[in-house]
């Protein structure tokens, strides 16, 4: 077997084990929280009888271990179950929201990744000069701003001062593609501002690191322009660290944007997860947690594979 294929297979197997461990941790964590789904549903209006009835109905009186394994059995046969709180089918509810999560992440990624790399290349080209300082200054200040502050700022600027976008970014099936893009414009802007700096700085640092090498000097001596040197010779050799940072940011765009979702009332997975955590709705928390973990693990495997493929030394081990 080709060593790369073998490595990928190993990583995937490890990833699956990791997912199993994650499901145990989520289950234990939710169990350890104060209160249960029955008391969370009934809230202030809970009477002891109502609590007992609801627990009975939801099967909360079964031992925790039994509940965990019956859930696991369901997942392995492709059945995520129904939400305890409102009886909705989890797979169906997640399906639509996962689509929205990926749509938002994709929009933000399509803009931010090329932009970050381009800005990184420019910053490296003009290392220490004013373009470098300007780019670093702006991106570092946007990453330093908490997401919700950035969000309120763009809401104020682009819905009140210059009213071109809507503050509520909900998207629905039946909306056209451009209509959807218009709806998510503000959260995309915020997410781009948040992830730009990290990727830009890594591109810049990786390129500058490579620029110290002797072969760069050779390229310069044979008369190539600085941008050509960077693009043809430095960038391909700096790709591994850049890719791992890009992938890390992609994972963040999928799993870590709940604050942005809340501020823009965007109907995606993060908000859905938070609502169900506060109601202790374990099947939903498990399912969404598992999806987030799977995305994270898969993207990390992808990063590993790309950096191996991009590096001849790792690709052809002696």
């Amino acid at each position, binding site marked *: 077997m080709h060593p790369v294929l073998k490595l990928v297979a190993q990583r995937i197997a490890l990833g699956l084990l990791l997912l199993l461990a994650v499901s145990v941790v989520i289950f234990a964590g939710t169990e350890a929280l104060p209160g249960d789904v029955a008391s*969370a549903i009934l809230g202030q209006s809970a*009477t002891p009888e109502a609590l007992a009835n609801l627990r009975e109905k939801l099967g909360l009186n079964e031992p925790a271990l039994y509940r965990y394994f019956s859930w696991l059995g369901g997942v392995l046969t492709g059945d995520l179950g129904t939400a305890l709180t409102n009886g909705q089918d989890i797979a169906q509810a997640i399906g639509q929201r996962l689509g929205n999560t990926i749509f938002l992440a994709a929009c933000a990624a399509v803009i931010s990744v090329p932009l970050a790399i381009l800005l990184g290349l420019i910053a490296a080209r003009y290392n220490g000069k004013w373009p470098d300082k300007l780019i670093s200054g702006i991106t570092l200040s946007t990453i330093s701003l908490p997401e919700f502050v950035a969000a309120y700022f763009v809401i104020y600027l682009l819905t009140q001062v210059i009213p071109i976008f809507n503050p*509520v970014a909900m998207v629905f099936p039946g909306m056209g593609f451009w209509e959807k893009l218009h709806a998510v414009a503000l959260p995309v802007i915020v997410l781009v501002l948040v992830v730009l700096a990290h990727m830009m700085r890594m591109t810049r640092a990786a390129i500058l690191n490579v620029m110290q090498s002797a072969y760069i000097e050779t390229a310069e001596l044979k008369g190539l322009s600085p941008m050509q040197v960077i693009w043809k010779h430095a960038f391909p050799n700096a790709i591994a660290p850049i890719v791992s940072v890009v992938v890390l940011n992609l994972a963040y765009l999928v799993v870590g944007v709940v604050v942005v979702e809340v501020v823009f009332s965007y109907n995606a997975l993060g908000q859905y997860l938070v609502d169900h955590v506060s109601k202790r709705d374990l099947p939903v928390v498990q399912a969404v947690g598992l999806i987030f973990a799977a995305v994270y693990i898969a993207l990390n495997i992808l990063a590993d594979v790309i950096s191996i493929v991009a590096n001849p030394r790792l690709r052809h081990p002696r």
Partner: protein
Amino acid sequence: MTDQLSHLARMAANGRMTRREFNSRAAALGVTSALAASAFATAARAQEPKKGGLMRAGMQGGESTNTLDPALAASEVPFAVNMIWGEMLVDVSASGEIDYRIAEEISSSPDAMEWKFKIRQGVEFHNGKTVTADDVVATLKRHTDEKAQSGALGIVQGITEMSASGDMVTLKLASGNADLPFLMADYHLIIQPGGGVDNPAEGIGAGPYKVVVNEPGVRHGFEKHANYFDSTMGHADQVEILVINDNTARTAALQAGQVHMINRVDPKIIELLKGAPGITIQHVAGRGHYVFIMHVDKAPFDNNDLRMALKLAINRQEMVDKILGGYGSRGNDFPINSAYPLFDDTIPQREYDAAAAAEFYKKSGHDGSPIELRTAPGAFPGAVEAAQLFAASAQVAGIPLTVKLEPDDGYWSDVWNVQPFCASYWGGRPVQDQMYSTAYLSTADWNDTKFKDAKFDEILIAARAELDATKRKAMYTELANILRDTGGLICPMFNDFVEAKRDEVAGWQPDPNGELMNGRALAKCWLNA
């Protein structure tokens, strides 16, 4: 003077004041009632409902865990959603009278033990079936079933017998209750086909709009129910509720015109929003109140002198000003205010009196150990700040009150009704009896002050069956005084419903029964293009 009159009439037609307020203000101008009526009619004609369009509300208080089962509605969005697709036997009007909906006539036996509801003919459910007396009985029966976990269980529990014959529903009660029609206006008691037994969350009702989209925690979309029986409701073709829990986003959506009305305007930004073009703030005194509750059966709160000391050591005006931004009124340590029928406004208002508090505190003989008040941000909006204000004003009186911050998570299961002293809120009920019976009767499930007083119980139950309003009012005054002077309730403030709408929304009438015109704003208002 005519200018003033037409100004008043426009305000009334715009829903800035009630018809009754308008009449009394007009009378103060020295206008004959005939002239006032014609001025009102002119202004109202300019307000002829316009049909059509899509009207949207942006609301706080919805989660993706919500369901359409009316028995389980507990937060603001499910309440408003159910009021759009659902219809009850009766509703309570803005001025506190019975508004007949599916029932068109109600009569009772002299002892208020047996009630007859005549069902309106030709009311249609969204699925085309006609509403019958059997549907009504099946609905009420479902709510009596403990397994339905209905929020109205406490109301229907007292019904011992229900029967339907022809278009008449007969309810027999375990003990007389003169308020029964008001109790039937509870928002959980939406009449469903077959009682909603087969599929309680189906969303099929007899209300002005049909459910088209149900995405809990995101949006709820409706279209007009063509055969709705009441032509004064259902002007827009489509209505929609968007769940926007974030305060800033909700306000921005209103300003940007993405929604036409919002609930729960943050008191901190009312002044700022007032200046915004095209937007008016709507506020109305409701029955909801924010409270600090002491368990009267646990030390040190089993000592009435200590309770009195704490009641005197709270600065109510400061709370109204700082926590409610002035949009509310002072509480008087009983859970009733002027929004209730039979309220006695001669009961003296309790004031902040540090000297008297210090005296009571001394008399209580408390050992000086810290008195812990538990609070959480979710106990009510501003609960943490209110507790801190309370502690500061109590310390002036020498009472060692300290604030303990609890997490929102698990507050209603681990702190409220468990710890002896904590912050909480009540949404209020349509009538006094229901409020007292829910939380202050010895046997009440939600007796969160553990208040048990035999004389109080006796008067409360006697008042329930008393059909003479004067006698009944006197009984409620006595109840209020008992609770005010010996209860475990510290009620510093009643909060207003503070909402905002865009100017193109017309037909708005303040309604103290619930927020957004008791959940009916989308159905009762219309859009002026």
